[in-house]
């Protein structure tokens, strides 16, 4: 396998090259190296004769490399001639002979600093764009909602129930498991550190307030964003890619009303229920750990809990749930509709949907904390 595919002998200003063997894809790498070597080695030549008589196979790879060899020599002012090429390869050589080199696109020159500034500008524009898309979607949803309220028959009740099953009922086990564990972990950490001051019993206050006001609803919203928000984005994105949404539009349906409103309504119903169930599971987990690890009996835990939390604590948590559902749902749908034709774009938008909605949920929670503090709740 090591015999040369191309051999050259120079006679003054005349170079004679002789090809042999199979000039095919498998040998392309070797052939390219030999051809480059032959072009470089030769000095000042006026005439190049290439004998292809001993080449028994030629494919596009070989034909192009031969063409390139001839072009290289022609560019240096040498006359090239090929002889001995088998007739059945003529058409192929004619084909590659017509190949024009790439018109290299004019690279927009610019320093890295300009590139950096430009990319910052682009990201700002993207953020602005997604903000306005969010507001647009909220507006479109309101319009669709008003229309549905005016004509209740148009509401896609079946679709909403189907979504409710997906995002609500089927999410119950995993949401309760995770919140149960989180409640347990909070209680364990509380007992471990509070016992240093002999303040074990205050762990019940901490678990109760933390879970009911913040953690319960926050964990549930984050889980829904990862579980259902991503599903919404992927579903709508695939429908967008396959022109299903355009098809709906041409039939005179409003995609917002048909696809998005039932999904958002399902989330608005499911998230508060999940938040409630999650909070209860977390309190249960906390109580269990307090009993087994901290020796706080269930009776004491419950009576302490009654003193520590009020209905208001619970309300503060639950009021937030529908708002978080709204944020997760709207972000997921906006990103789903923003999917372009490629599978990469689908992946990108699904990631963006989860990241954005988790971020916004946490920011929203912060605003609620400030709001409730200032009104004294």
């Amino acid at each position, binding site marked *: 396998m090591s015999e040369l595919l191309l051999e050259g002998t120079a006679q003054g200003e005349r170079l004679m090259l002789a090809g042999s063997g199979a000039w095919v894809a498998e040998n*392309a790498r070797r052939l390219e190296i030999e051809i480059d070597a032959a072009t470089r080695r030769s000095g000042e030549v006026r005439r190049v004769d290439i004998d292809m008589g001993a080449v028994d196979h030629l494919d596009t790879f070989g034909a192009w490399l031969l063409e390139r060899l001839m072009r290289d020599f022609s560019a240096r002012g040498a006359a090239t001639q090929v002889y001995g090429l088998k007739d059945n390869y003529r058409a192929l050589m004619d084909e590659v002979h017509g190949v024009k080199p790439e018109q290299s696109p004019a690279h927009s020159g610019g320093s890295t600093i300009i590139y950096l500034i430009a990319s910052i500008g682009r990201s700002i524009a993207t953020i602005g764009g997604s903000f306005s898309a969010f507001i647009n979607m909220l507006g479109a949803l309101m319009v669709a909602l008003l229309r549905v309220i005016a004509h209740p028959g148009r509401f896609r009740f079946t679709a909403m129930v189907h979504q409710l099953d997906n995002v609500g009922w089927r999410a119950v086990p995993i949401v309760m498991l995770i919140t149960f564990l989180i409640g347990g972990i909070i209680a364990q950490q509380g007992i471990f550190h509070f016992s240093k001051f002999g303040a074990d019993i205050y762990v019940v206050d901490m678990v109760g307030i933390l879970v009911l006001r913040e953690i319960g609803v926050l964990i549930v919203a984050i889980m829904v964003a990862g579980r259902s928000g991503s599903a919404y984005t992927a579903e709508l994105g695939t429908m967008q890619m396959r022109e299903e949404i355009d098809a709906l539009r041409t039939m005179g349906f409003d995609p917002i009303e048909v696809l998005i409103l039932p999904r958002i309504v399902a989330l608005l119903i499911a998230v508060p229920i999940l938040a409630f169930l999650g909070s209860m599971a977390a309190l249960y987990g906390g109580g269990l750990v307090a009993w087994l690890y901290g020796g706080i009996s269930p009776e004491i835990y419950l009576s302490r809990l009654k003193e520590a939390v009020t209905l208001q604590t619970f309300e503060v948590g639950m009021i937030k749930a529908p708002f978080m559902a709204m944020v997760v749902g709207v972000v997921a749908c906006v990103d789903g509709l923003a999917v372009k034709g*490629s599978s990469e774009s689908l992946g990108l938008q699904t990631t963006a949907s989860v990241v954005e909605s988790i971020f916004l949920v946490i920011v929203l929670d912060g605003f609620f904390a400030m709001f409730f503090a200032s009104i004294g709740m």
Partner: protein
Amino acid sequence: MAQGNGRRDVVIEVRDVVVGFGDHLVLDHVNLDVYRGEILGFVGGSGAGKSVLTRAIIGLLPKRAGTIKVFGVEMSAASDAARQAVERHWGVLFQQGALFSSLTVRENLQFPIREYLKVSQTLLDELAIAKLEMVGLDSSVLEKFPSELSGGMTKRVALARALALDPEIVFLDEPTSGLDPIGAGAFDTLIMTLQRTLGLTVFMVTHDLDSLHTVCDRIAVLADGKVIAAGTMDTMLASTHPWLRAYFHGTRSRANHLDVAKI
């Protein structure tokens, strides 16, 4: 017409192949030979199993019985290395093109070459252009993404990708579907030119009667889970089988409009 030169070398040999889904047998003991250097048109009613046989040959569908030999290699029994060696020598044009949507045209074309052969980036770039020009496009589409191409361009780029490794067999699944008559005609000519220049064997699933008339050397007909006829256009037109008569002498056939039996 390329009627072989005396010896007829069989490159694809399908014997008694059975493929089914559940209780339903789509292919029931199918036999088919494809000879080296020919363009075989493969026709049959919608749902007759043309795509199923094509997918069974290229190994995307398992068969229940029978043998499929490509270049004399029984694909289902071959070692990984032997199978890869065969796969390296065929190219497939899927009906929708199946271009990788996250790669540009350039990357799509270079992908198979880069994976199989270690050649320099310069050569990769030059070959991408050469392949594009062979299918009638030019370097202006190199940086486009598949979603930015028109239907005809997608087919051409997909054909260029199928040809990337200089295969010996190309499978074309309805290459002219979705193209306007002019575009379809140009695509037919392109297939013929490429077949001649590269010495390809072409296995073409098609419904386009014009393609069958102009480019195919032989036609095989699938009906009722079997290949009911295989031969030249003349044989098909002369056949008395009711399905063949309906297909080739129907209102949309050329034979109805002008006498082209001698094409």
